[in-house]
């Protein structure tokens, strides 16, 4: 009798599909496509297969393989798309960076040194971090314990760059002599998401319910407004003191999104929009750096008349020259953008060499990562996981929008990097960590519900049966 009960309550031995083999097949493509791209660049530039072809292919394959094996072992039910998509973007990014390393115009610059080897190293470190998160983070809910520590760490990371010299007009780097520089904002993104998720999970009821209704909106109590005001103030401060429009926009956007998801109150969105509009007007009026950016966005081609930076105009011309199908790998002149061609402006190279088709594909891949993250949030069973997955995905999406929009002239340019593709160690490391957390949450979310322990009540019911 009892064996009968267990049979009906446990999941069948086949279990829900783990989708690991799907992931493996997709990963094969994610490695092959950049390999072909790499060969293509070599053939276009020198007429022969690049010498590093084998090493590069094996390296990327190995990294992807390690990632896959670890996912198989430690996150068996994880979302099968996240790892291949991230690998593909990272691989393509590496090829573009390597391609721009061969660009004569960039090589002629004074401080030129090839970025691809470094980027490959950081990609390996990124995968290592991905693996480490999967292995050591047994359950994402552990992160909830570190809510307030996260807040302190995030604040330190955000404030630290103020004490370091500005580079290229923005204070977003921590320079460690001899080791290079670090962009703490990229890591702060994740840590802040943890803090927001933990904090909002506790406070959501107070924020959602203790409110007055006014003109169809639920107005929060004054004291509940505190946190949003603090975050707003911090992001404005970042903007003013670190002259970093992107980071400030990203954090505020992420906070408003998470607040909205936690409380289900549209009023927060309204507040958020009003405050960011107010902040934008204020900063635009008083901060010359931001004014410059806005002017450069409105009149990109004035740069040729007044001698200011022509980056946006050059990026736009790179996109336009690519047209629908692009010039083909290695055959464009996106290196005309000059400074930051392989980091903030990396999408322009995609635009010129792969054309509209290539950019649409890349944007779709980013969109897919965001939507898989949000799908994870939907599936997550605990509110902390939901909030965290939603926050991280939205932050990723906003970052892509802010960077790509800036490069394509849709919004003013901000100093942020395309996740996974752009050259920059901090960015690669942080985004691999971000994906690792999403993978972990999705594993928990998709894992079949544990078999309920054989209920002692079962016997009793039978006893009571008439």
């Amino acid at each position, binding site marked *: 009798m009892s064996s009968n009960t267990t049979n009906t309550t446990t999941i069948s031995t086949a279990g829900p599909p783990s989708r690991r083999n799907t992931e493996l097949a997709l990963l094969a493509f994610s490695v092959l496509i950049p390999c072909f791209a790499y060969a293509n660049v070599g053939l276009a530039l020198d007429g022969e297969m690049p010498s590093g072809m084998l090493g590069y292919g094996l390296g990327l394959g190995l990294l992807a393989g390690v990632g896959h094996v670890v996912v198989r072992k430690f996150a068996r039910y994880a979302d099968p798309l996240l790892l291949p998509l991230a690998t593909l973007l990272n691989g393509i990014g590496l090829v573009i960076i390597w391609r721009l390393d061969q660009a004569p115009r960039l090589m002629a610059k004074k401080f030129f040194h090839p970025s691809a080897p470094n980027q490959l190293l950081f990609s390996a470190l990124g995968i290592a971090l991905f693996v480490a998160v999967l292995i050591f983070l047994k359950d994402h809910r552990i992160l909830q314990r570190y809510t307030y520590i996260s807040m302190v760490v995030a604040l330190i990371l955000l404030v630290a760059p103020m004490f370091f010299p500005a580079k290229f007009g923005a204070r977003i780097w921590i320079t460690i002599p001899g080791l290079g520089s670090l962009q703490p904002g990229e890591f702060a993104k994740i840590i802040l998401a943890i803090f927001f998720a933990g904090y909002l999970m506790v406070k959501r009821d107070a924020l959602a319910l203790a409110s007055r209704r006014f003109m169809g909106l639920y107005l929060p109590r004054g004291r509940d407004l505190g946190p949003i005001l603090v975050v707003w103030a911090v992001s404005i401060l970042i903007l003013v003191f670190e002259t970093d429009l992107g980071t400030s926009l990203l954090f505020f956007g992420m906070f408003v999104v998470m607040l909205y998801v936690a409380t289900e109150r549209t009023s927060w969105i309204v507040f958020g929009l009003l405050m960011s509009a107010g902040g934008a007007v204020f900063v635009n009026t008083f901060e010359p750096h931001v004014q410059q950016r806005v002017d450069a966005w409105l009149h990109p081609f004035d740069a040729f008349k007044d001698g200011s930076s022509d980056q946006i105009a050059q990026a736009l011309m790179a*996109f336009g020259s690519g047209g629908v199908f692009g010039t083909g790998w290695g055959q464009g002149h996106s290196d005309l953008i000059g400074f930051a061609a392989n980091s903030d402006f990396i999408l322009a190279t995609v635009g010129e060499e792969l054309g509209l088709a290539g950019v649409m594909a890349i944007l779709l891949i980013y969109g897919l990562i965001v939507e898989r993250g949000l799908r994870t949030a939907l599936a997550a069973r605990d509110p902390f996981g939901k909030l965290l997955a939603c926050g991280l995905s939205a932050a990723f999406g906003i970052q892509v*929008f802010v960077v790509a929009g800036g490069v394509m002239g849709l919004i003013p340019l901000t100093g942020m990097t395309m996740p996974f593709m752009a050259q920059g160690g901090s960015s690669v490391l942080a985004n691999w960590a971000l994906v690792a957390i999403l993978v972990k949450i999705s594993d928990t979310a998709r894992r079949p519900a544990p078999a309920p322990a054989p209920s002692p009540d079962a016997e009793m019911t039978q006893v009571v049966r008439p």
Partner: protein
Amino acid sequence: MNKPVRRIAIFCGLLVLALMMRDNWIQFVQAEELKTHENNRRVLIARYSQPRGNIIVDGQTVTGSKETDNTDFKYKRTYKNGEMWAPVTGYASQVYGANQLEKLDDPVLTGDDDRLFFNRTVDMITGKGKKGGDVITTLNAKAQEAAFKGLGNKRGAVAALDPRTGKILALASTPSYDPSRIAGSDDEKAWKELTSDKNQPMLNRALKQTYPPGSTFKVVTAAAALQNGLYKDVDSKTDSPLPWTLPDTRVQLQNEGNIPCKEASLRVALQYSCNTVFGKVSADLGNKKMMDQAEKFGFNNPKLDTPVRAAESVYPKDNRPQNAMAGIGQASNRATPLQMAMVAAAVANNGKLMEPYMVDKLRAPNLNVIETHTPKQLNQPLSSENAQKLQSIMETVVEKGTGTNAQIDGVTVGGKTGTAQHGVDNSGNPYAWFISYAKGKDGSPVAVAVVIEGSETTRDDIAGGKLAAPVAKGVMEAVLKTEK
């Protein structure tokens, strides 16, 4: 919490959608505009990424392309004997653009011309790079050399035409410049030097500079006299008193020295270059008729394209004394050397003025001819009969008048000298002019105009004959030699 998460998902989807729409906007809708934007360096890079087509004279190229170690512009233009050919080719610079033939036929030279579309497509399929076509000119290398060497280190210009077709045979201007000097990407110093040089070496004097035509304009005045029936015969006496006072003034028009100008026939008047006779002809005909005649020869035409556009030679509306002075080329009428060559050519070609041109053919890289210029008659300023009368008296000028320096053994040559005063109270150095034509077996194969911005020593009417006529003679001889 799922409802807001779904909304956030939609929001993120919209963000990506906005990016995609923007991308379509810049990479599809605005793509062409951005691709060809004036600040888009790719346009120049593509332009110099392959050897440029050549400009060809007498089957020999006068241009070339050289591979450079510049990262952006792979090939730069080179010129063979650049100083001599600069008035024909113009320059094609990686930095400063192009002018003249280099500019006008740029699409053919770079291979971008629509008519080369088929070639381009084939080259693309077979994996060859784009190639430029060639521009085949009408010029005569020997004549050009004679003109350029004849001018030497003097300041001046030569234009020579084939009167029968309008082909430009020589087009020289001195001081000149070598366009190779400014072809590259780091030639700022040479560019500044050339553009600020007060001798204006980059000015194409043969086409772009107008001068007072001086006595050479008397040929136009004589044509007007014959065409309007003022005098029917070049050997009968004219109604020309001496001294003669300019109409509406008390100023007596002077002749150069003591020459037999009283009631002189047109032949004698042209032979000695009588100011009084032709001044009076112009005054008798009036401004309107003189202007009409000048316009038939090509004056007052702002759009004379060879295809390089020549500066407008003018014969303006004017009051009576000024019009009389214009009849001897000493008022506000001005002419380019090309214009005066056209005058000589029309007379030599029995009154028919052919449109001057210097591009004979445009040729695709596979040697297919994509365009051939057909000679076109521009006008008929003279009847055939009057043209022959005028030829006869111009030939007298060379035979025993002011133009004896242009005589060629065994060849009939007609010409007219001129020395144009200029500057306030004629303070500037005069311009020595000579226009002439030579006759061959079959019509006249060459008409030439020479102007030399004179030096101090040449303040008389002989200047034209002394300075300019030998140059014209050299050019005519060169053409006659190649004609055989």
